[in-house]
């Protein structure tokens, strides 16, 4: 009896994830040859801790993009959630409660996007562009650029000390990855996300409620952003009001490089993990290789373009394979 997990795996359907993995391995091999000192435990730990919050946001972004949407307000949501996390901590709320509260606040921000997109049927790009500006500038206006400082001692590293705190951050990211990987594959709701992103009308005819799915996805995105913001904040003794700048681009890039199709319906979290690792490693790897780290962004951009281009080329090849199928649907009925 074949295990569905493996028989489900089809190499041809995962060539984009594979491409990202090959690029990642190639990067590691290159750095390994040029600068073997890159491979030390401390460096890997720093990379893991710094990229764990990005991974959590990218997981949410994968859901959003697979559902055929986009959310560019996550950087601003991240900033607001970070400051609120610090402010709440100062009121003396116990840390475990904070772990519940901040994601809930994030979910509320996500719900705002979701209501506009799912219920009022406005394009996600416009809605989230607007909410991005609103959250960011409201924050700037309220805080006047000041930082949140003087959190209680049990805020940094959750009071567990640096080592345990770092383990906790990475463990959270990993737990979120496993949970969402499982849910996307094993829950009806996960199927619904793919179906809605692939063809909302077909999903609706199959008894799925696309607006509800879209709303849920935006709320999950917000909750994950809140969690990422909290986990990121506990690394520092003060929280700046402009954190999360450019986070939306990092997350979207990781998702796209990881093989998720930008138009929705296809993508995996394994790809997102690889994409996050690849884009999160480049900067440090370049430094170790003695290349000016100012190149980081340019190289990241090139990788994203390459990922998108391969998408177009691959889908063109696939379409020509299926050309016979698509011709069969030409309407040759009555004169309309």
């Amino acid at each position, binding site marked *: *009896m074949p295990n*569905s*997990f493996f*028989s*489900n795996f*089809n190499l041809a*359907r995962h060539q984009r994830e594979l491409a990202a993995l090959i690029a990642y391995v190639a990067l590691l091999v290159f750095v390994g040859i040029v600068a073997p000192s890159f491979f030390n435990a401390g460096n890997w730990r720093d990379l893991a801790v710094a990229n764990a919050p990005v991974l959590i946001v990218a997981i949410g972004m994968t859901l959003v993009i697979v559902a055929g949407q986009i959310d560019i307000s996550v950087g601003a949501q991240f900033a607001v959630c970070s400051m609120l996390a610090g402010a709440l901590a100062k009121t003396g709320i116990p840390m475990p409660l904070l772990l519940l509260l901040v994601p809930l606040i994030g979910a509320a921000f996500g719900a705002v996007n979701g209501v506009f997109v799912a219920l009022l049927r406005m394009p996600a790009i416009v809605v989230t562009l607007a909410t991005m500006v609103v959250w960011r500038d409201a924050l700037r206006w309220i805080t006047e650029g000041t930082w949140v400082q003087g959190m209680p001692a049990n805020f940094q590293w959750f009071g567990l000390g640096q080592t345990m705190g770092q383990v906790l951050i990475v463990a959270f990211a990993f737990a979120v990855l496993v949970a969402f990987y499982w849910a996307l*594959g*094993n*829950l*009806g709701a996960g*199927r*619904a996300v*793919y*179906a809605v992103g*692939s*063809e909302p*009308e*077909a*999903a*609706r*005819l*199959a*008894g*799925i*409620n696309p607006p509800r799915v879209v709303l849920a996805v935006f709320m999950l995105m917000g909750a994950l952003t809140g969690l990422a913001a909290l986990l990121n904040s506990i690394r520092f003794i003060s929280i700046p009001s402009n954190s999360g700048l450019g986070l939306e681009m990092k997350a979207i890039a990781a998702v796209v490089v990881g093989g998720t199709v930008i138009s929705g*319906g*296809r993508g995996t979290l394994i790809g997102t993990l690889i994409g996050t690792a690849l884009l999160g490693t480049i900067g440090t790897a370049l430094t170790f290789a003695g290349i000016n780290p100012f190149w980081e962004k340019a190289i990241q951009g090139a990788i994203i373009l390459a990922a998108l281009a391969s998408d177009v080329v691959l889908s063109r090849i*696939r379409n020509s*394979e*299926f050309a*016979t*199928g*698509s*011709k*069969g*649907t*030409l*309407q*040759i*009925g*009555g*004169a*309309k």
Partner: protein
Amino acid sequence: MTESLLLQANYITKSYAGVQALKSASFELRAGEVHALIGENGAGKSTLIKIITGAVEADGGELFLNDQRITANSPQYSHSLGIAAIYQQPALFPELTVAENIAFGLERHGLWSRIDWRKRRQRAESLLAQVGAKISPDALAGDLSMPEQQLVEIARALGAEAKVLILDEPTASLSEEDTNNLFRVIRELRARGVGMIYISHRLEELPLIADRVTVLRDGNTIETRAMNEVDRQELIRLMVGRELSAVFPKREVPIGEVVLELRNVGSQAAGVRDVSLTVRAGEIVGLAGLVGAGRTELARTLFGLTPADEGEIWLNGERLTINSPTQAIQHGIAYVPEDRRRHGVVLDLPISHNITLATLNRLAKFGALDFERERELSVEYVNRFAVKTPTTFAPVATLSGGNQQKVALSRWLATEPRVLILDEPTQGIDVGAKSEIHTLMCDLAERGLAILMISSELPEVLGMSDRIAVMHAGTIVGVLSRGNATQQNVLSLALGHGANA
């Protein structure tokens, strides 16, 4: 006579992915005549028009305009030769003014040339005056009514000095007054020597406007006659005159209790009104009608997509309210939609996921999807319907049309429905797969399913149905039993003439 021949199409053939849309279509148009082109749904009218306008390329045959052979046709080329087409749904830019719309395609200028707004307005005014339209050139096209937009299109065609004007169902959504006005414009154009191809399902208006009529059937030109030599009966006979070419695997199965009953059902949003119909267990009821008669709209109302706002829907003696597909599915109503590739299946998803998409909540075991059950279910359906695929994990996009339709059917049978609505179940699939689907329908009826089948193919309706309900203008205008139904009386009802006509 030949010197006034504007357009000539000889023995045109065209096939789409193995389906022969035109076998041998011939047509000629003289200057200053209105030549009606009629035929059933799928007779090939659209395809012939598309070949004349250059939207699609013919596989064979010849096309002449003014005795010049047209070899490489394209929309731009046919336009430059003076061929213009006006469709049932006007194709204007709603955000532009009438004058701009008329100028579009008429004015030729380079990137840097200035627009002479005054001239543009004046020309629009004079063209609109020629078609007798009282429309301001500065009005936005989107603000105009449908008949007004049609007149703007005709004005534009006039401006382009069209010699051949194709009118595709121009009166389908016009009131009597607007129709009369349109006919007046058509007569004026005829007097000026414009040749017009007039496509219409309204046979009764043809004697008022057409000079000659050509009947297409199954991709062949059957006959061209002078309009004053034929009557409506004769035209209907020419349109359907074929024998049932295919043999349908229809089996007699015992008909059971009434499963679905509609009492004066209507939906304003769907444009369906006062529909009363029963479907019994084991019965296949065919829903016939012309494109736009409201068949798909009725199906969508029953499935909760455009909920009924009047009348009653009864299922197994229980009155239902169906406000969403989810409710319809819960009540045991399944709908296999017309547009298979966009709505029937999700192309990106594997076969197995497609089959279980409407039953995900039943597939869950302690919240999680039961992959073993999903595998069993999809293998069962793939085997039962002989879906040609190496694995149930293949994306549905890799399958042929017939196999995709079997997957769509599987999804709905997995919901264990009591009523199955099939919308054009065999459209665009090859003959072999068609016959398999027909056999399947008989199997399902035998198991006691109540089946409502929408089809634009009269032979399929006649060959597969126990009873045939014919729709016209949003309602059922007649129900014929299998024994009484003929192509003539079904078509006659569909054209809105009553069964005894």
